[in-house]
């Protein structure tokens, strides 16, 4: 079952919603179970000043979305990129084995939002981030095949 921390974040998620005129948006789908996560960031002087999310998914998906917004808030872009799935899992007091992929989803969503921000502001994109983006794009196509196009 879920840890107390997961339940706490699932029942009372932080930073739910959208940001008007965001600096960057990251949207990722989960190849394993069809969950969808969308993350908005507002960046000032390379610091994530505001961050919000919307997630369609299970308790673990909602909890990981919520906690990554808390961890990333007020972090420098380069530091936010260092947030790992291990850090997410640890800060949630663990995840059930079948739900580890949810933490990957949250990390990916943040990376995609930063990718979007760097691209929009015509900044240089680190090679790892670019590769990550290409992988996610590929997965999105597979997800669309499996689950149909994501509707809003």
């Amino acid at each position: 079952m879920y840890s107390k921390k997961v339940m706490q974040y699932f029942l009372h998620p932080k930073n739910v919603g959208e940001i008007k005129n965001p600096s960057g948006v990251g949207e990722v789908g989960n190849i394993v179970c069809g969950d969808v996560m969308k993350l908005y960031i507002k960046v000032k002087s390379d610091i994530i000043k505001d961050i919000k999310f919307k997630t369609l998914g299970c308790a673990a998906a909602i909890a990981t979305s919520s906690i990554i917004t808390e961890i990333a808030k007020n972090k420098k872009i380069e530091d936010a990129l260092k947030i790992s799935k291990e850090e997410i899992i640890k800060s949630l007091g663990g995840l059930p084995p079948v739900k580890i992929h949810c933490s990957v989803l949250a990390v990916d969503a943040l990376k995609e939002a930063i990718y979007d921000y760097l691209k929009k502001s015509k900044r240089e994109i680190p090679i790892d981030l670019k590769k990550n983006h290409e992988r996610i794009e590929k997965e999105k196509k597979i997800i669309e095949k499996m689950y149909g196009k994501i509707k809003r």
Partner: protein
Amino acid sequence: MRRIYLDYAATTPLAKEVLEAMKPYFYKIFGNASSLHKFGREAKEALENSREFIKKKACANEHELIFTSGGTESNNFAIKGIAFANRKKGKHIITTKIEHDCILNACKWLEENGFKVSYLSVDKEGFVDLGELERTIRKDTILVSIIHGNNEIGTIQDLKEIGKICMKKGVYFHTDACQSFMKEKIDFDYVDLVTVNAHKIYGPKGVGGLFIRKDVKIDPILHGGGHEFSLRSGTENIAGIIGFAKAVEIMKEMDIENMKKTRDMIIKGALEIENTKLNGPKGEKRLCNNANISFIGVEGEAIVLRLDEKGIAVSTGSACSSRSLEPSHVLLALGLKPEEISSAIRFSTGKETKKEEIEYVVKTLKEVVKDLRKISLLK
């Protein structure tokens, strides 16, 4: 905190009368029914009286009732027992895509051991196509196994019409009636083997039975001292069997009526929420206590856990629980969309479910779905 249980299709509490009936059989009439002495004879008498009582209540005149450890064992016994006893006649079995896992996995195991299995599809409401069934029966078909009342979506199959086809074609017909026993009419005249159990009708867990028509050729899967007409060895669970018989005895028409009434209330209330869908049959061919509803735009597991926090117990029986990611094979077989499958919730009512409880559940459900949709991407 107020606690409301709406997961009676998973299991029911033991009825007080059942517990009282069972008590003496743990310490007073505790004998082994195979023993020759009085202790044993008393146990044997209790066993046989229970057997006859349940058979009579079920109107199963041409069947023997073999007691087992529950639905899973009965289903395994029926599938494997028929397969092995009749494998010289043929090695083909027909079942459906909406069976309980114990039927599907028993069939899978038989497939790994040289048998062939056909899985019938169902329509949007979960009904088997009788024409398809007839066309699927081959010369080497030995068994048709079709669930009576589906545990997830509540669809009740027409045992009589299926049975007629099986009779005409000369193949055995087994039905898993774990959810429907004592709730819906079971036409024993048209079914060769019927799986039943106790814990879905306020009896104890760990007891069930398989009704077997007396001329059916079946092998045991548990070999031993020759108990239960040499079809199921192992010292009989007398207390459990007594409890099973008592559970059958106390089931009343008004209990069924209450389940139906509260089921209909939950369906009506839940469908008041926008963007919802009732899964399974639309009409009266639905289990008296089953409601299965999709709440598009949220995930079933999230609803279950949010309701649980408010003291309400329901079930997903579907995708993405903390234990498994597999989408429900039953909802998949209905041809539902992925977002309908992952957002499905099963409510199952009981004989003591109250109107006020359902009102509270519906009110809470509306809040929970609204709140989760605020988090969700899908509107």
